[in-house]
């Protein structure tokens, strides 16, 4: 029998606990202000900024002072909004707060009356951020699910903002359907825990964690894994992601990609380390496999795409894969007893989560600035924007370098940690299969890194470098100050965390240690557990900069000052036309050819002849990739479901006689069954 938790009247509302309410309240006010004052388009973003800053404050406060909890009056006797702000929550709240602050500032410039000024956008934006904040604070099944669904709903409203385009409508529907299906798995998982623990609160789950049967834990884990994977965009549950993220306004895409999909990572860590511990090794292997597949395929698809925002969306799939590699490694390692290394792995995953939020947020904001300036997201129409949009270009470059794991930026730091964790997986592998699996994961991560660099060299190079490929990209203006300021802030954060990763790793290490190895009191103990592998980004940066400057100075000293002449580039003696430049698809073509078995590229080219076979007047060319998952996974499922439904519908044939016989048959059958 389930123990229900009626509102606990004795527990006074702690003053500390109200800190939880500040961000949520501000977001709520922002959402309401959007409804009440639709003409003040910037007011909701003001509230969102205030809320996000208070979220940062709350997160920092909780990291310093330990957990607080807050129970709001109950909704129903079995349902209440319960909040708990502990270190893990605080960390994710910080991520949300930091990115949402930047995005809110950006929105002052981005969401004016002409673009995304409608009542729905500001309201849904605040609701969206608020729901994410509430989600990571939730401490009961009801609260978790409420905020989970609210988050989906608010983001759905934003995704379908431009619903007059058929593609956007389709994206919105697929998004909502997939995310809700995922939520169904979460409900099932939570209910499994609730039934076994007799509680609907996370506290009850924690208490009961040790007593669950292994079978039940495995079942719950798989349910949660599917549910969270659908939200995180793990392949093959990712199909909504590359549709929904480009469809949303860019400030929303930044949040969806930057933090929303991370809430699934939060959930996975929360559930598996707290409610389902101890975790068997095979969970870790499953997650490692999912992570490897998502990382490699995600980046390949990203590389193939020429829609700037869709490219970024696919790249989110990749980064979720990288994060999962860390999570999976931590499970494998902790199951093998290598707790220090497990802490390192989880710490890497958490760190990469923060990093990805920063640089993916930055990149989506950059893409938004480009879209706003040029009116297109198609890279084949862009080029040369670095001259007119220097700030956007510079910050986008930082983001690109960071996401490509180029030192000294933050992406490299977390990828370095993940590789160290994988090294421990390989080194501690018991038996060739485990070693081989670890090696494959390593290879996958390495391949991902290489392809990601390719992908973002393409993204930055084709968009910002060279010459404009269409009129749309020729006469453009730099984004307003609010937008560039936000992007610069995020770029700075990428650099700072890249140079001083310990700022974050201290926290992630402590969180990971608390989650995995309560006996390891300090993160330092963890690090000394293995022979020291070192990466000191400040030293690296100093060396690179010093050598570069030194080289330039020495050369100048010996050979005199630089002499430079500007001229047209060499293109075999003719004048350069913008169309001669390597296009995005041409750049990516070698990879497309290598992976054509998977990507299934197609090409339709048609020549129109008017005066005999030798006079081609027009060439029509169309190329693309065949959607593998849709064709082999989703379409069969959906179509068989619809076929089944159509078949079932025949029972309602309109025949009165048939209906009467249903009643009669039911009576007979039930009488027989209940004899």
């Amino acid at each position, binding site marked *: 029998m389930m123990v229900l938790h009626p509102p606990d009247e004795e527990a006074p509302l702690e003053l500390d606990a109200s800190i939880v309410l500040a961000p949520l309240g501000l977001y709520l006010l922002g959402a309401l202000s959007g409804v009440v004052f639709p003409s003040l388009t910037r007011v909701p973003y003001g509230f969102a900024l205030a809320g996000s800053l208070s979220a940062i404050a709350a997160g920092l406060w909780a990291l310093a002072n330990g957990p607080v909890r807050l129970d709001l009056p109950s909704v129903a006797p079995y349902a209440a909004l319960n909040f708990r702000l502990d270190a893990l929550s605080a960390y994710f709240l910080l991520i949300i707060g930091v990115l949402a602050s930047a995005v809110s500032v950006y929105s002052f410039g981005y969401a004016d009356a002409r673009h995304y000024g409608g009542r729905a956008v500001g309201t849904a934006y605040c609701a969206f951020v608020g729901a994410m904040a509430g989600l990571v604070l939730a401490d009961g099944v009801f609260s978790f699910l409420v905020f989970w669904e609210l988050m989906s709903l608010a983001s759905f409203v934003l995704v379908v903002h431009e619903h007059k385009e058929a593609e956007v409508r389709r994206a919105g529907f697929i998004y909502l359907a997939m995310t809700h299906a995922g939520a169904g798995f979460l409900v099932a998982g939570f209910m499994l825990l609730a039934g076994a623990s007799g509680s609907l609160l996370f506290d009850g789950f924690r208490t009961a964690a040790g007593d669950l049967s292994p079978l039940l834990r495995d079942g719950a884990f798989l349910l949660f894994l599917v549910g969270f994977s659908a939200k995180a965009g793990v392949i093959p549950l990712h199909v909504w992601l590359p549709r929904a993220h480009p469809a949303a306004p860019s400030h929303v895409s930044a949040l969806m990609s930057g933090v929303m999909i991370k809430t699934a990572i939060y959930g996975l860590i929360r559930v598996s380390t707290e409610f389902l511990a101890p975790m068997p090794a095979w969970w870790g292997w499953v997650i490692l496999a999912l992570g490897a597949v998502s990382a490699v395929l995600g980046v390949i698809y990203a590389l193939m795409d020429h829609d700037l925002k869709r490219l970024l969306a696919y790249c989110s799939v990749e980064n979720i894969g990288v994060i999962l590699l860390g999570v999976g490694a931590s499970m494998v390692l902790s199951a093998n007893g290598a707790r220090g290394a497990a802490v390192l792995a989880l710490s890497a995953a958490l760190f990469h989560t923060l990093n990805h939020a920063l640089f993916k947020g930055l990149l989506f904001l950059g893409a938004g600035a480009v879209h706003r300036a040029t009116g297109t997201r198609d890279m084949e129409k862009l080029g040369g924007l670095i001259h007119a949009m220097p700030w956007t270009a510079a910050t986008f470059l930082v983001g690109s370098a960071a996401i490509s794991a180029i*030192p000294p930026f933050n992406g490299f730091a977390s990828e370095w940690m993940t590789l160290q964790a994988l090294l421990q997986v390989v080194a501690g592998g018991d038996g060739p299969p485990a070693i081989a699996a670890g090696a494959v994961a390593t290879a996958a991560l390495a391949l991902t890194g290489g392809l990601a660099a390719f992908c973002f060299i393409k993204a930055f190079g084709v968009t910002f470098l060279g010459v404009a490929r269409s009129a749309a990209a020729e006469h453009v203006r730099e984004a307003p100050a609010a937008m560039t300021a936000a992007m610069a802030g995020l770029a700075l954060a990428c650099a700072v965390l890249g140079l001083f990763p310990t700022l974050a790793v201290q926290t992630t290490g402590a969180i990971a240690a608390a989650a995995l190895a309560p006996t390891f009191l300090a993160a330092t103990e963890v690090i000394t557990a293995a022979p020291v592998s070192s990466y000191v980004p400040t030293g690296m940066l100093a060396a690179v900069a010093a050598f570069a400057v030194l080289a330039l100075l020495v050369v100048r000293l010996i050979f005199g000052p630089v002499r430079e002449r500007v001229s047209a580039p060499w293109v075999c003696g003719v004048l350069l036309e913008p169309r001669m430049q*390597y296009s995005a698809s041409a750049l990516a073509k070698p990879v497309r050819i290598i992976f054509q078995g998977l990507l299934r590229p197609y090409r339709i080219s048609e020549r129109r002849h008017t005066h005999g076979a030798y006079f081609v007047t027009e060439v029509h060319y169309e190329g693309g990739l065949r959607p593998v998952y849709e064709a082999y996974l989703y379409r069969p499922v959906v179509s068989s479901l619809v076929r089944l439904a159509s078949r079932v519908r025949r029972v309602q044939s309109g025949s009165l006689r048939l209906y009467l016989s249903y009643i009669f048959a039911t009576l007979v059958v039930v009488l027989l069954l209940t004899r």
Partner: protein
Amino acid sequence: MTPGDLLLFALQLPLVVLLAPALNGAIKAWKAFWQNRQGPGLLQPWWDIAKYLARESVVSEHASWVYRWAPAVYLGALLTAACLAPTLAIFSPLGRYGDAIAVVGLLALARFALALAALDTASNFGGMGTSRELMFAALVEPALLLGVFAVAAPLGTTNLEALAAGTPVDMAHVLAFGCLFIVAIAETGRIPVDNPDTHLELTMAHEGMILEYSGRPLGLLLLGGHVKQLVMLSLLAAFFLPWGSARDLTAPALALGLVAYVLKVTVLAAALGLTESLNAKLRVFKVPELLGTASVLGFLAVVAGVTGGAH
């Protein structure tokens, strides 16, 4: 930095800067030797670089600051890598600041800068070279890391000093050497992956990227390329031929280390030259197969290394 580091720094930096072009000359000389012809002198690369450094640079009218800064970043990153890699000693001047993965990261940084610069000119050759180079690089990456892991996993660390202090006399190291040797060929843009001596549009990769560069920036890039080549060979030498490397900072040890080091990289250069002479350049889309082979070798090396270490 300790005084010891500074001392090593003072030795290693000039060593790599001076040795790198000479090593390229050595490879050419070896090639000429294997091909039974008269090659250019050992110091020819030096003169080439000096010539470029003195010349005026012609810059594409579409180029931005990315193009102008790329050579410096490229060279800076590779020089840093060169100071991370153990050369004449098993430790290196910057060894405490980075490990094997950091070296991989620095190589990536260099490539990143160069690839962007190639796209910045708006020339189609830049795009062509970038496209191919980056495809190779992406496929090299797993092989490189697996090769490193094969050496590192049994030790549980990627610390370069630890790796250079190992005793490479097992199956794992043989396999890993095969893997990393192919990686070195690809990273240095040599036959059968790329041809450093051609500017033919249909085949070039690395040369396509730097095609638009001229004058001083080209000189810096050439020097950087030579340094990168030396870094790769130094790593090979450190992992697989650790004999003779200095294990402390005494003069005799360093002297012995220096001799041993030059000997080792020369031998490796000979191997590269021999490979170049014995093979024809592969078609672009045959290269992935070669790099796949490297990855498989690396994979086997990892499994062999860890299981062997466990016994």
